[in-house]
C-alpha cells in the first residue's frame, strides 16, 4: 500500500487544478450573468442598439454560456485573457506589469510577519500571565482589531509630519534613473544590476506599506503561536524531557517551537486570502500601482475581462501559497508524510 511521494504530490496538484477550474467557472458565471450586458456597458449609454449587437457578436456573447466558457478557458490557457476595456491592452500585459509589485509587497510582508510574530508568540507563551505576556497580547490584539486602512493612514500621516524625507507613496522615487529589470521585483532587479541605490530606495518605499499590510497577520499569528505553544506545553512529551533535566529553553526553542509552528503555518495559508484582500486597501492608500490597485480600478470601471483575471490570479496566489504551506508542514510533521503514503 506504499505510495510514492511523487504520486501524493501529483494528487494534490490535481486537486488544485480542479479548484482552479471550479473557481474560474464561478467567476466566469458571475462576470457574465450577474451584471447584465457587458457590451452595453463597454459602449456606454450613448451607443445605439445595432452597435451593441455588433459588439455582442464580436465578443461572442450571443453563443451559449458553456461554449463561451470553453472558449475563454482555451484562450486563457494559451495566455490570452482578453482585452481590458479600460486600458485597451491585453489583460495579460497589464497583469505582467502589475503582479510583480504586489508579489514583492506581499512577500516582504509575510517575511516580516513571521519574523515578528513567531518570536513574540513564543515569548508571550513563555512569560504567560506576566507583564511581558500582557503587553505582547495587547499588541497582537490591536493588530487584529485595528482596521488596516486606519493603521495605514495614520502611519502615512505620522511619516509625512515627522519623517519628511521618508517616501509615503509609490514604489520608487521618480528622480532615480531606472528602466526596470527582468523580474519586475525592484529588490531583485536592483541587486542583479548592482544598483544598490535602487534597492535601498525600494526598501524605504516598502517599509510602511509592508508594515501596514502585515499588522493583521502579526496579530493573528502571534496569537495562534502563543496558544499552540501553551497547548503543547501541557503534553506528556514535555514532561518526559523535563523529568530528565533537559533545560527549559531547549524544550521551548527546539521541541515546542517546531511542533507549534504547524498551527500558525496552516493559519498563514488560509490567511493569505485576507492578506490579498488587504493589499487592495494598502495599495490604494500608498498608490502602489500593483495588481491590487489594478483590480480595484477594474472593479470600479466594471472592466469584466480584467475583473475575471484579477480574481483568478488572486485565487492562484492563494492556491500556490497553500501548496507551499502544505509542503512545509509535511516536511515538519512525519505523521503527515506517513498518512500520505497510506
Amino acid at each position, binding site marked *: 500500500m506504499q505510495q510514492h511521494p511523487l504520486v501524493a504530490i501529483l494528487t494534490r496538484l490535481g*486537486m488544485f487544478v*480542479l*479548484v*482552479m477550474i*471550479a*473557481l474560474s467557472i*464561478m*467567476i466566469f458565471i*458571475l*462576470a457574465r450573468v*450577474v*451584471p447584465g450586458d457587458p457590451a452595453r456597458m463597454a459602449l456606454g449609454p450613448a451607443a445605439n442598439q445595432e452597435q451593441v449587437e455588433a459588439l455582442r457578436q464580436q465578443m461572442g456573447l450571443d453563443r451559449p454560456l458553456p461554449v463561451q466558457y470553453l472558449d475563454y478557458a482555451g484562450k486563457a490557457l494559451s495566455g490570452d485573457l482578453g482585452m481590458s476595456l479600460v486600458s485597451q491592452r491585453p489583460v495579460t500585459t497589464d497583469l505582467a506589469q502589475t503582479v510583480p509589485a504586489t508579489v514583492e509587497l506581499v512577500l516582504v510582508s509575510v517575511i516580516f510577519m513571521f519574523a515578528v510574530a513567531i518570536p513574540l508568540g513564543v515569548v508571550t507563551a513563555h512569560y504567560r500571565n506576566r507583564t511581558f505576556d500582557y503587553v505582547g497580547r495587547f499588541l497582537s*490584539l*490591536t493588530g*487584529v*482589531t*485595528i*482596521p*488596516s*486602512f*486606519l493603521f495605514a*493612514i*495614520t502611519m502615512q*500621516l505620522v511619516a*509625512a*509630519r515627522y519623517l519628511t524625507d521618508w517616501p509615503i507613496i509609490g514604489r520608487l522615487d521618480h528622480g532615480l534613473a531606472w528602466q526596470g529589470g527582468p523580474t519586475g521585483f525592484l529588490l531583485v532587479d536592483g541587486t542583479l544590476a548592482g544598483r544598490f541605490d535602487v534597492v535601498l530606495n525600494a526598501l524605504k518605499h516598502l517599509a510602511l506599506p509592508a508594515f501596514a499590510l502585515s499588522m493583521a497577520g502579526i496579530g493573528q499569528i502571534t*496569537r*495562534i503561536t502563543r*496558544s*499552540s505553544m501553551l*497547548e503543547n506545553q501541557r503534553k506528556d512529551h514535555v514532561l518526559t524531557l523535563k523529568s530528565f533535566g533537559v533545560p527549559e529553553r531547549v524544550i521551548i526553542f527546539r521541541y515546542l517551537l517546531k511542533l507549534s509552528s504547524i*498551527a500558525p503555518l496552516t*493559519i498563514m495559508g*488560509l490567511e493569505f*486570502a*485576507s492578506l*490579498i*484582500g*488587504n493589499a*487592495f*486597501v494598502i495599495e*490604494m492608500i500608498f498608490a502602489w500601482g500593483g495588481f491590487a490597485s489594478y*483590480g*480595484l480600478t477594474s*472593479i*470600479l470601471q*466594471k472592466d469584466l475581462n480584467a*475583473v475575471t483575471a*484579477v*480574481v483568478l490570479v*488572486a*485565487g492562484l496566489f*492563494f*492556491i500556490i501559497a497553500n501548496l507551499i504551506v502544505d509542503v512545509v508542514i509535511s516536511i515538519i510533521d512525519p505523521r503527515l508524510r506517513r498518512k500520505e503514503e497510506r
Partner: protein
Amino acid sequence: MADMKMLDASDRGLSSGYMMWYRFSRNPAAVIGSLILLSIVILAVFAPWLTPYPKHVGAVVDFRARHLPPDASHWFGTDKAGRDIFSRTVFGLRVSLLLVIGVLGISVPVGTVLGLIAGYFGGWVEKLITGLTNVMLAMPPLVMALAVSNLLEPTLINAMIAITLLWWTWHARLIYSVSKSIAAEDYIEAARLAGAGPIHILFREILPNCMAVISVKTTLDAAFVILFGATLSFLGFGVKPPTPDLGSMVADGRQFMPDFWWEVLCPGAMVFYVTLGFNLLGDGLRDMFDVEN
C-alpha cells in the same frame, strides 16, 4: 461504595453553572469584552436618546460649525458639513451591528448545518461540501465582495450578500472538522443503535457538542465582519450618504488629514472599540471552554 466516595473527592460536586461562572469571573478578557459589547449595544439601540445631535445623521449642513475640534459639546469634533461626529459614529455602530447580524445570522446556521452534514454522513456528500468550501476559500473574500457588490450595485445590502456568500465556508469548514471527530465517538454509534434518526443525531447529539466552538468562532467572526464592512465602505462600497457608516466616515475625513485628524481617528477608534470588544469576548470564551484552535 467506592463509587460514591470518589464522587465527593472530585470536582463532580460542582454544578456546571458554577464552573462556567467561576471561569468567566476569573477571565478578565471575557469580562471586559462583555462590558464593551454591552455598552455598544446600549449605545446603538438607544442612539436617538443618547446622542447630543441625533439630527446630524441626515443631510444637515451647518457651515459655521465645520471642522470643529473635539470639545465639551462635540466630543469627537465636527465634520466638513459641521455635523457632530460623536452622534454620527454612534449611529454608524447601528450599521456595523446590522451587518454583523445580517451576515452571521445567515452564514453561521448555513455553515453549521453543511459542516454537520459533511462531517456526519461522509461519502460523496462530504466530498461535495468540502470540495465546495475549498473552492470558496480560494477566493479572497474582500476581492469577491468588491466584485460582487460592484457588479450588482454598491449598496450595504449587496455588500452583505457578497460577504454572506463567502462567510459560510469558514464555519462549514470548522464545524465539519469538529463534527467529523464527534461522529466517530462511541456515543454517536450508541445513539444510532438506540434507533435515532439522522436529524436527531445531527442536531441533538452532535450539535450540542459543537456549541462551544461555534460561539467562540462566531464572536471572533463578528469582529472580522465589522472590519470587513468598514473596509468595504472605506473603499466606497457601503451605505449611501448621508447615512453614517464608520468606514466611509474615515474615508471622508482622509482628505482633511492631518489638520482635522479627529475626522479620521474618532470613527476609526470606534471601529477599534467594537472589534476589541468582540475579540476580547471571543478570546475569553475560548479560554473558558478550553477550545483548541
